[in-house]
């Protein structure tokens, strides 16, 4: 999933302080799972903002709504009937949802209510870690199923670097060395000989480096 984290409320207040009618818009997908932008977080943020503005002696309308997805035109259409009741939207979706909402409602200011962090997984409740950077050309078959692009601080394809200490990354003792994980996994798979295969220079043109990306699938188009 896409993992997001809460933005400080002061930052959100700064965006909307001059608006009178604000819609807090949640998303029922990834940000719900990572507890940053689902229905529950919409309610919490809306209450906190109401309280803040009441304390400031300001009467503002703070609406709440959570869509099934903000990255889908179909669900964003549900906003059409109520959007005119608002001066601004604070979207608690990932950056994709924020942008898709803004694209759909061209004259409506849409502010981000979370920081979009990475594609990752839930280690345990309250802890999420990165697993993928969407480089567009998956190498996991060659690296024992552990991604050096997203999990090595230097994204080394032929690691580990000399800074690895006791299985940890040189930048942070809390962080596993991706290449230690790769080696452990190759060992478990009985494929240690794979370690000595030199991985050649990567074609990064499918990555961010190649410019904004697009997937076109004619087989599923209507």
């Amino acid at each position, binding site marked *: 999933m896409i993992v997001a984290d809460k933005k400080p409320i002061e930052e959100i207040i700064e965006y909307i302080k001059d608006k009178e009618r604000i819609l807090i818009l949640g998303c029922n997908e990834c940000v719900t799972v990572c507890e940053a932008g689902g229905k529950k977080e919409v309610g919490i943020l809306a209450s906190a903002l109401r309280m803040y503005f009441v304390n400031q002696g300001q009467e503002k309308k703070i609406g709440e709504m959570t869509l099934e997805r903000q990255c889908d035109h179909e669900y964003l259409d549900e906003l059409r009937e109520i959007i005119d009741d608002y001066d601004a939207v604070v979207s608690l979706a990932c950056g994709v949802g924020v942008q898709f909402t803004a694209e759909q409602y061209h004259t409506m200011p849409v502010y981000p209510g979370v920081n979009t962090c990475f594609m990752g997984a839930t280690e345990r409740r309250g802890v999420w870690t990165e697993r993928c950077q969407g480089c567009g050309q998956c190498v996991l078959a060659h690296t024992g199923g552990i991604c050096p692009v997203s999990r090595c*601080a*230097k*994204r*080394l*394809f*032929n*690691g*580990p*670097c*000399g*800074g*690895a*200490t*006791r*299985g940890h990354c*040189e*930048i942070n003792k809390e962080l596993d*060395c991706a290449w*230690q994980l790769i*080696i452990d996994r190759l060992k478990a798979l009985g494929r240690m000989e794979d*370690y*000595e295969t*030199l*991985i*050649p*220079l*990567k074609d*990064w043109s499918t990555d961010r480096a190649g410019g904004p990306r697009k997937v076109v699938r004619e087989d599923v188009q209507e």
Partner: protein
Amino acid sequence: MSEKTPSRLEKVLRAGHLAVTSECGPPRGSDPAAIKEKAELIKDYVDAINITDNQTSMTRMCSLASCIHLKLMGLEPVLQMVTRDRNRIAIQSDILGAASFDIHNMLCLSGDHQSFGDCAQGQNVHDVDSMQLLQTVRFMRDEGKFLGGDEIKRPPKMFVGAAANPFADPFEIRVPRLAKKIAAGAEFIQTQCIYNLEKFEEWMKMAGERGLLDKVFILAGVTPMKSAGMAKYMKNRVPGMDVPDEVVKRLAAAPKEEQARVGIDMCVESIQRLKEVPGVKGFHVMAIEWEEKVPEIVERAGLYPRPDVG
């Protein structure tokens, strides 16, 4: 093995002499005097001088310009290049720039992570890694081509090296990793500072058993300790460093004003012992901000005068 480049370092090694290299860190400013003075101190005691590339990610004068200063003094630089700050365009371009000044040695590294330095908020590049950098230089030299396939007019003639850390974890892949660097094109290796001599000897033995020591020149890395405090710092704070307790203890046992002398003694003793290790073809003396001690170390270790290879 016949020489493949005009490198003086390569000549010394192929003639069977124990080579001596050292390194200078460029200044945090634009005054070339700093690098020239350091080089002047050590030039008669080494075969080549590495110039570090923004080591520990602290921004400094660039390695290439510093190498050019050495070259203009008639000295033999080893251009260190890290993959942290350059994509493959900049890498190839800098290699050609170095070659245009007849800089004939290069050390390929990934570089310390930028979070250690003064631009922790900056991006890193890592378009290629250190092994792929080795492959890139060798391809440019041996095929005479750019990575894109076009012909290079006057290809670079670099003697190509890599770093090896026999002490980093996991130990079991330290020899396979050396094999991989050799396969990628490394012709010489400068190792991490050696304090744990037993572990280094074990690594060399394993490398020998795999037949790697006939394929690459190993320069054993040594760094004199200035004090017990430095030893403790290196033991506890520097990633990938293996400083046994005995090293710290011996320094700490000496009075403070004697510790630097003990550090030099220990460094000389290490070289003496390492000379006996089969496969050690030379020494890389990294006297960090202590370049003035290099002549004494080299002389006391019996590595002076340096051979004249023409």
